[in-house]
């Protein structure tokens, strides 16, 4: 499926020794005006989101939305089925037994909230995404076990030395450039 005119993008990848070094480097780079950067680490970095300047996550709102829809669907389902569509006298209990609807209402709201969170997380992170240009570099494989990387977007073709020097100055142990089709 080779697209004919695929626009190529490239990033400057820099590995740092310690997570703190990565975080401070990222902050400094952002203060220098670099945008669209991303950090890579085996676990969430302390202060990493502020360093990247990310807006508060939308996952909680998706979860709340899921929970409320779950609550509504459960109440509607039970009431419609046992009270409106086929009303039956069950042990002299009222046709609309709200207390009896509570357990399933709670369960469904939790379920829908969980679905909201899970699929929200995948959607927001645009996963599943087996291919990404950063995988072009082999050294990058340490990012999932013990490496700490920073990627800085860079116009393809131009000289990236200025950026690479700044990164080295900030303590990068190795710097490379990768190019690939964008997402």
């Amino acid at each position, binding site marked *: 499926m080779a697209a004919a005119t695929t626009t190529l993008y490239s990033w400057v990848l820099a590995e740092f020794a310690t997570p703190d070094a990565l975080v401070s480097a990222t902050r400094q780079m952002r203060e220098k005006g670099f945008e669209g950067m991303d950090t890579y680490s085996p*676990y969430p970095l302390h202060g*990493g989101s502020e360093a990247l300047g990310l807006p508060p996550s939308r996952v909680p709102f998706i979860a709340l939305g899921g929970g409320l829809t779950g609550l509504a669907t459960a109440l509607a389902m039970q009431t419609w089925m046992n009270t409106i569509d086929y009303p039956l006298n069950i042990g002299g209990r009222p046709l609309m037994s709200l207390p*009896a609807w509570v357990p399933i209402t709670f*369960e469904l709201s939790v379920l829908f*909230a*969980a679905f909201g969170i899970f699929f929200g997380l*995948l959607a927001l992170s645009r996963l599943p995404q087996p291919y990404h240009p950063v995988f072009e570099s082999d050294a990058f494989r340490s990012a999932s076990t013990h490496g700490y990387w920073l990627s800085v977007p860079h116009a393809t073709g131009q000289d990236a030395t200025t950026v690479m020097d700044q990164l080295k100055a900030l303590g990068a142990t190795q710097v490379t450039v990768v190019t690939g089709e964008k997402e």
Partner: protein
Amino acid sequence: MAETAITAPLDPLEPRHLVAPHHDDASLNETLLDHVWRKPGKGWFMLFGLTLSALGLLVIGVTYTLARGIGVWGNNQPVGWAFDIINFVWWVGIGHAGTLISAILLLFQQKWRTSINRFAEAMTLFAVMCAGLFPLLHTGRPWFAFWLFPYPSTLGAWPQFRSPLVWDVFAISTYLTVSALFWYVGLIPDLAALRDSSKTKAQRLIYGLFSLGWRGSGRHWHNYKIAYLLLAGLSTPLVVSVHTIVSFDFAVSLLPGWHATIFPPYFVAGAVFSGFAMVITLIVPARKYLGLRDVITDRHLENMNKVILATGLIVSYGYMMEHFIAWYSQNQYEYWTFYVNRATGPYAGVYWLMIACNVITPNIFWFQKCRRSIPIMWVASIMVNIGMWCERFIIIVTSLSQDFLPSSWGIYSPTWVDWAIYIGTLGLFGTLFLLFLKFVPAVAVSEVKELQLELKHAAHHHDGADAATHGAH
């Protein structure tokens, strides 16, 4: 990384190490993923053979039951439920410990949960799978069990939502789904780690496929952390509600011995109690053979024993409260059930075994020596689970065998099919657990690394190092 020597002698009040200090990320990665790559030893295969044969027993028992009907079990007219619902409640109870550890302790910021939460969650999944078998199998006509779900049928008939059994269906399926999601979300970074540290191309492809292309991006971690926390937040009320609904199976009825308002908290405490006991039973040998002693230290075991002690006392309180209410209410039927039928009736033996296991055994954990002695805690954990099984037997079978009209009292005795299915579910659980230990890291690698980093920060802070630059916590 300078080896910080263990300076002072082990001061009992000084908390033991959560993660052995001499580790760094790479070595942690090495120790935790080692047991996945290592070829399974002779021990693993021997155990696996054992559990597979028990699984075969389950297949035979289930097939014979489906072919001939529930009559091949020991159930009879007054005692409609026996092994089928005992095993169901027992397995669901065991399952709840996993969610408790991974969710509730996360909310309580209990650091020691990190190295055992994956282990416990796996146990949850497999226990709930074993439990999920029974609501279908115990029905007289399992081929019509789909009527329990609200689908638009040509009959125009719907399930009856006042019945606790329908609640069970929703609760157990929700619990299974949310636990699976929570477990998988926690697993994604580790799968990525496996992908990148696996040797052969085939392994890289498989782990790569399951890790959904996770690359540890900061933007992903930003959503991941809050999602993981929210799932944990959701799981906490969920686990309490699921076992409350399981206790509703008995509490909403009017049988003496079932119809008690103490049931929901008493069942949830019982679930946590037997769940932690099962974690101890599994984790003690697992950490030895998988070499996870550095990560699952004595402190974890001790904390779990403390939880067992606490929940054991709640369960004992539950028994006491049931007996008190029976006496205090002067209700003839309740009085007979608790003071005559259970204590001196045909199943008195099981009753006193339950008291021994659930009320007396946990109290040994008042003593630190017992809390830290491996053999004592292992035997105690097995006794606790036997006790909890007996408790469900007593609740279900004795209350059914002698309730209101003396003329309809009856005796229940299990048949070989009952035993085959029970031992069979143990086999199913064992098989799944051994496969889990083989193919998936038993400890949440990324979380432990994160914890390691945190501990180092705390250590520096503690040593009075310059706090400002490091922005602790």
